[in-house]
């Protein structure tokens, strides 16, 4: 028994055995990829679909309504590999085997960063990076987990940015190339926008968001755990004077952290409103959000050592709830700001704001619950 798939070829419906359908989809995907630079792409694709449709119809009789996989295979062989006449210069032979086509000659061997769904844990970013740098995904996950802890969760933003920027490997082509091509800025920005809009529009986002929350909750719990361990280890080995010094460091680090956080918020505001940060304006052609992302990254880089000092010194003086609360408030403000930026720059986000506010409260609860 074979599963049958109903398809539409240029407006007419046909029933194909499932393996045949897979093959045909592969063929058409490949054809589309080869024609991607051709101005006639849509027309040629319609022509090809119609030609395939006619060949399918020829195999059917009143008592045979399904095109078999073997027939599909024969049809694909008859159709032959699709070549774009605009891209044929200098390359004469084309055997039709995947990877030898003239249109592939330029980009095939290049690696390309994709998110990979197979075996993903969250969005497939780690999986894609692992494929890209050719190491086991476990190492990437460990690295991400460690960096997340050391950056006090700051890496989450980098991760989210990557999740929006990197496309999924949807086709066999993509998966084959899940190993290639450097990004250019324009492509990167348009893809991030597109992905974000899709993310906002699809019903799926609710589920994603809940997963996100669970992820964050886990992260917070995890960080807290780390903090306790560090505190317990640091305490007993410190001398009296070191404890006093540690206490001073906590105060200084927390103050400096707060100042930096406020500076970040002010810098982002001035970037949004006046397009300059302390007299420094964005380089020509750099979009605003890239500038903001840069600021956030600088913030993370500068604030990480301070946090580590604070973490190291937290034990001796006891963990005062006030500092945790202050940190929580700053952290929350930062989050709200991110949401506000998203609200301003991505129209799809508008409807989500209510839920974001609700999530913000949840994060605040989590912060005070786990830290206090």
């Amino acid at each position, binding site marked *: 028994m074979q599963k049958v798939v109903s398809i539409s070829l*240029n*407006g*007419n419906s046909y029933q194909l055995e499932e393996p045949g359908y897979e093959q045909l989809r592969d063929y058409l995907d490949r*054809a589309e990829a080869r*024609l991607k630079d*051709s*101005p*006639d792409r849509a*027309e*040629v694709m319609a*022509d*090809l679909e*119609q*030609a395939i*449709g*006619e060949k399918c*119809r020829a195999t059917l009789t009143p008592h045979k309504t399904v095109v078999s996989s073997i027939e599909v295979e024969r049809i694909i062989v*008859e*159709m*032959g*590999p*699709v*070549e*774009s*006449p*605009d891209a*044929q210069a200098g390359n*004469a*032979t084309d055997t*039709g085997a995947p990877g030898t086509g003239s249109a592939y000659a330029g980009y095939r061997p290049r690696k390309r960063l994709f998110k990979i769904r197979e075996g993903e844990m969250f969005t497939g970013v780690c999986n894609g990076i692992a494929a890209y740098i050719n190491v086991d995904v476990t190492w990437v996950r460990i690295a991400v987990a460690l960096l997340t802890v050391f950056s006090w969760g700051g890496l989450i933003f980098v991760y989210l940015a990557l999740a929006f920027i990197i496309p999924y490997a949807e086709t066999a082509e993509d998966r084959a190339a899940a190993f290639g091509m450097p990004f250019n800025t324009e492509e990167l920005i348009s893809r991030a926008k597109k992905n974000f809009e899709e993310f906002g529009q699809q019903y799926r986002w609710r589920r994603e968001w809940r997963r996100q929350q669970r992820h964050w909750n886990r992260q917070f719990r995890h960080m807290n755990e780390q903090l306790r361990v560090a505190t317990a280890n640091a305490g007993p080995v410190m001398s009296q004077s070191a404890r006093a010094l540690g206490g001073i460091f906590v105060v200084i680090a927390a103050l400096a952290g707060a100042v930096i956080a406020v500076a970040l918020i002010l810098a982002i505001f001035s970037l949004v409103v006046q397009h300059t940060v302390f007299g420094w304006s964005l380089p020509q052609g750099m979009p605003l959000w890239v500038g903001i992302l840069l600021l956030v990254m600088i913030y993370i880089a500068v604030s990480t050592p301070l946090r580590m000092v604070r973490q190291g010194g937290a034990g001796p003086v006891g963990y005062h709830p006030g500092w945790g609360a202050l940190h929580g408030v700053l952290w929350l403000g930062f989050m709200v700001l991110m949401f506000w930026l998203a609200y301003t720059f991505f129209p799809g986000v508008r409807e989500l704001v209510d839920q974001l506010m609700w999530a913000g409260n949840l994060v605040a609860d989590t912060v005070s619950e786990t830290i206090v």
Partner: protein
Amino acid sequence: MDLNEKLAPIRKGLLEFVILKIVAGDKVYVADMLKLLGPTEFATQEGTLYPLLSKLRREELVDYEWQESEAGPPRKYYKLTPKGRTQLSTLNEYWKNLNRTLADFGN
């Protein structure tokens, strides 16, 4: 390098010329073009022919019209445009000169 590999680019380059010659006669459907080309050195497939015809149409050398078929959706029948006819006679001329040049070299 085997001989066929040397000849393939020549055939490929001439395919466009051959297509213009075919559509210069009556209006033709792609399946009929393939049948005509099948027994010749220029045997080709839909995967090559459709993109080539779309390119020729973009260059305004050929055009098509829709015609009802007895079974299934209407089909595209291709024909030569006046511009295509001019180019075809230029190509014919060029081909003759090429033959003459080759003959002049002898052997």
